[in-house]
């Protein structure tokens, strides 16, 4: 591999304005970038992550951050073994592609950590740009990583982790890391992707990008009407939406109702009412979001005929009733509680509007079998994930239609 010789600029110069936030990697960046890939799902990595999970769960602060707690559970051995069984193909030799350069989103605290573990388990060396904002969640996880880095047993894994923070305008750093990586993983924002892509990659390297997406939720009112624990459904929906300001790529903006007219009407009333109670209790609405909502609503009314705002008590929750489903519906969205609603005669009615921008379809009251059938029969242009309400944010090694482990590793054929 010629890779390292290609780097003309001395490394030190490029790392000048970078804050390196994990400890051991600092002494020996050269060794880090020259280390060799691992097998996918290696025992070392699983041991390491299991220990990381233990350290995190011991940290008092983890309890106050559900996202850190969820991450800790994800890293437990039992979960990882399950994933190994699912993804590792017996008899096939698969090792990491080399150096991954991860660029994590600036406003989702733990995303960087998931990106990192999939990088480790696919056998790679990881340079991770963590959010430049100061999130305590990041601090907790970095602290745990630093704890492990002092432990000799985990040295080889620790040496494959290089966490950096730097200003988004520091293009030298992005340029340099791009020039030495084998895969660059860019987490969203179309504009971010465009700007980062201005930095060349080595010929064999490639990008895995997670651009802006659109998500929807399908609720079968005929089942929902019988739901006893409606507040639990609301809780799940709240976590899918308001918990991240309805601004995660997985957050639904379009709610498609199925079922009889009467059941839909009743269900809507119950569903939104129970959600509203939660939002009122937990969500802080910022004034400018309210202006955003009303602006988006009027803008939508100028572009989509026949929409009506449903009466709501306040501005925490805006519901927009659609008369029909237009192909450009995904253009009219707003964060912080703005929902388009449509009553469809069947799930297949929505196929025509689904394009490649559609990512997550969350659902309630539809048998899994029917969902699989829907995909097989309709083969919509978009939708990469179908999850129950409340599970849209759950990280999976299949993301945005990529099988991440196999995308980030290479298969070696011996014949």
């Amino acid at each position, binding site marked *: 591999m010629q890779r390292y010789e290609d780097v003309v600029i001395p490394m030190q110069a490029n790392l000048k304005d970078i804050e390196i936030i994990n400890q051991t990697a600092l002494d020996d960046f050269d060794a880090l970038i020259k280390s060799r890939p691992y097998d996918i799902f290696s025992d070392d990595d699983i041991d390491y992550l299991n220990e990381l999970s233990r350290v995190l769960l011991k940290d008092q602060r983890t309890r106050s951050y559900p996202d850190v707690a969820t991450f800790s559970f994800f890293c437990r051995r039992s979960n990882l073994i399950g994933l190994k069984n699912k993804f590792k193909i017996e008899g096939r030799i698969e090792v990491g592609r080399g150096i991954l350069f991860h660029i994590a*989103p600036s406003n989702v605290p733990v995303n960087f950590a998931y990106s990192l573990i999939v990088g480790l388990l696919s056998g790679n060396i990881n340079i991770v740009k963590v959010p430049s904002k100061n999130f305590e969640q990041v601090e907790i996880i970095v602290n745990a990583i630093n704890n492990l880095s002092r432990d000799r047993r985990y040295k080889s894994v620790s040496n494959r982790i290089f966490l950096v923070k730097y200003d*988004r305008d520091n293009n030298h750093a992005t340029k340099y890391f791009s020039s030495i990586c084998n895969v660059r993983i*860019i987490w969203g*924002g179309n*504009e971010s992707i465009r700007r980062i892509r201005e930095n060349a990659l080595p010929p064999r390297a490639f990008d895995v990008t997670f651009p802006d997406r659109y998500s929807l939720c399908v609720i079968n009112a005929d089942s929902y009407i019988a739901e006893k624990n409606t507040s639990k459904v609301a809780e799940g929906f709240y976590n899918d939406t308001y918990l991240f300001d309805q601004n995660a790529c997985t957050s639904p903006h379009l709610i498609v109702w199925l079922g009889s007219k009467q059941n839909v009407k009743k269900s809507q009333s119950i569903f939104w009412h129970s959600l509203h109670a939660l939002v009122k209790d937990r969500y802080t609405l910022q*004034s*400018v979001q309210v*202006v955003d909502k009303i602006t988006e609503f009027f803008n939508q009314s100028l572009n989509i005929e026949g*929409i009506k705002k449903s009466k709501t008590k306040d501005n925490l929750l805006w519901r927009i009733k659609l008369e029909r489903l237009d192909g450009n519906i995904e253009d009219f969205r707003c964060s912080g509680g703005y929902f388009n609603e449509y009553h469809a005669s069947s799930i297949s009615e929505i196929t025509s509007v689904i394009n490649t921008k559609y990512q997550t379809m969350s659902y309630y009251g539809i048998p899994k079998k029917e969902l699989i059938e829907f995909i097989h029969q309709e083969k919509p242009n978009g939708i990469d994930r179908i999850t129950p309400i409340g599970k849209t944010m759950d990280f999976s090694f299949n993301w945005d239609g990529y099988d991440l482990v196999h995308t980030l590793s290479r298969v070696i054929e011996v014949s």
Partner: protein
Amino acid sequence: MNIDALFNINPYSLGKKEKSKLLSNYLAELTRHHYMKSVHYKAMVDAMSFDINSEVTYTELPFLPVRLFKLNHLSSIANKDISKTMISSGTSGQQPSKIFLDKETSLRQTKVLAKIVSEFTGSTRSPMIILDSISVLKNRNMFSARGAGIIGFSMFGTKRVYALKENMELDIESLGAFVRDHQESRIFIFGFTFMIYKHFIKELQKKKINLDLSNAILIHGGGWKKLESQSISPKEFKKLLADLTGLKSIYDYYGMVEQTGSICMECEYGHLHTSIFSDIIIRRPYDFSVAEIGEIGIIQTVSILPKSYPGHSLLTEDEGILLGEDDCQCGRLGKYFQVIGRLKNAEIRGCSDTYAS
């Protein structure tokens, strides 16, 4: 609808009850007018399920967020009747607002501005200093907010001088000569707050120039956003001007290109006043209900002037406080208020931009 009768009375002479009745009539009529004339406006009002024939007070009429004028061309006249297009100073990266005027609306704006401002300057015209550069007026068909302001206020001047050269440098020779030539008269000065600070106050300070404007009156507008970032308060702004030039009569105003003409002038007590041609409603962000006196909220502005475009009831992106109604010490009737500033940008979570700050 005729507003001529209103020109015969003082613009601050109607108490709460009378003014509310007047505004309700005029604004409901304007709402119906735009509903009939603008398909866009109709679509929006229908989407809100608002019945335009319902008898409501003006606070219950629909309001459009000002940002909409940046996203869409909203007009209630045929293209051939457009006599002027005004554009707002769009913040960087944003589309500017476009406001379409016909002769009638444009004339109303001029007349109302004259009516309001002459309450402060007196009805005779004076020699005028414009604290800006003539280059702002280059394109006569597309008026920027600054250009529109300058042209609007120019009617109060007899002789006019632009204090800034084309390169925005202070033209101290012309200015000095103008002040000397008009020692005997009361000079009227107009400019935009930030421009005045940056190109006038700062220059006078830097070059240690003394200019005697103790007999002049200054009217300025355009907002405090840029000065806030330099931590210059309205009080300090006035003090700097008084120290450097002896200026004592300084009046800020609150207005926007989307509702040109019916501006809110600051009184001697530092309060912004609505005239009989307009009103403000402070709304609670939580549910858009009307806030109490003393409560911070989003400013909605209504004006009875906009006939050529549906801008008679607008939700701004400013925060403000209603200080009182009909009882300001200055004696003017109507609501008086204070502008806090722009709504803060939202800090939102979610996997949008890795490049967002």
